[in-house]
């Protein structure tokens, strides 16, 4: 990897982490979601500083083309995040449904009382 590419990678990893931390500080991102993205930032940071790491992993797994490992990991990670988000979304939908039901019931109670 050229030093230019390395520099860009390090800087974007740092920027990502700072941005996520800023969102957490302003309470615009919950702590639990921030952990995933901070971990991603750290991973990229390490990969950029130690380019040999990717080569080492690909040799270990017998993959001839090291970047393929990176793509594979990225895709699996993103799939994981998407499943997680779908899970959270399901929970949210269940909660809003319960809320709407509660309000409907309370309204009918209030109307019967008046």
């Amino acid at each position: 990897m050229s030093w230019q590419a390395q520099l860009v990678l390090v800087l974007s990893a740092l920027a990502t982490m700072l941005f996520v931390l800023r969102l957490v500080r302003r309470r615009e991102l919950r702590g639990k979601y921030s952990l995933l993205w901070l971990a991603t930032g750290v991973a990229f940071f390490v990969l950029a500083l130690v380019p040999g790491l990717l080569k080492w992993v690909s040799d270990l797994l017998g993959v001839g083309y090291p970047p393929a490992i990176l793509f594979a990991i990225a895709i699996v990670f993103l799939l994981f995040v998407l499943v997680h988000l779908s899970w959270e979304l399901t929970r949210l939908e269940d909660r809003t449904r319960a809320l709407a039901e509660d309000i409907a019931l309370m309204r009918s109670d209030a109307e019967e009382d008046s």
Partner: protein
Amino acid sequence: MQKTLVVIPAYDEEASLPGVLKELREQAPDFDVLVVSDGSTDRTAAVARADGARVLELPCNLGIGAALRVAFRYAVNHGYERVAQVDADGQHDPVTLERLLARIDDGADLVIGSRFAEGGAVTYDVSAFRRRGMKVLRHLVKRLTGREFTDTTSGFRAMSQPMVEHFSRSYPSEYMESVEALVDACRAGFNVIEIPVNMRGREGGAPSTRGFRLLYSYVRLVVVLVASAGGRPPVTR
């Protein structure tokens, strides 16, 4: 006599709640009691009502932070001048409540009942892992606030009206919110103090979180605390 509200966040605590309410009625009859049932699946709310407590019922389980937050809003809306927070599992002795509230009258905004402060007693079993986590938190809180607190996760606290007002707008809602709230209160310039208290073993129920989830909670909390350490204060809504 100042208008005082005792808040008890409760999640499936039908077993221990009657004992806590009975003690409060005997030891602190002048205080109003508000039980927040955090999406309980047992008879927590019914038990509390039967005992004459005020009850807020959340339609789903939102966590202790959210339960406290709605209680603080209730306190603000109803003009309470002092608010105390007590656990539903019977760990906290209502006799001590008066001592916490007395410090509010002396001008403190947030009084934390500490298990570990000089003079406090632990008749109380904390797991080794939890104790290590608490130690890390203690050091972190010291770095962030410049103050030494011995029991950052205590759920036995008393608050002044301005403190409750502040919390009703900005109380954190994720697990171990008490530490975040403590740091937030210090940074916002409130007068936060800690006094030693005795705590007893639980009357019922088990610690809400352990093992991997507990570790995850610690990591999350450290990230949030460190992230919050600099720059402008959080957006409140």
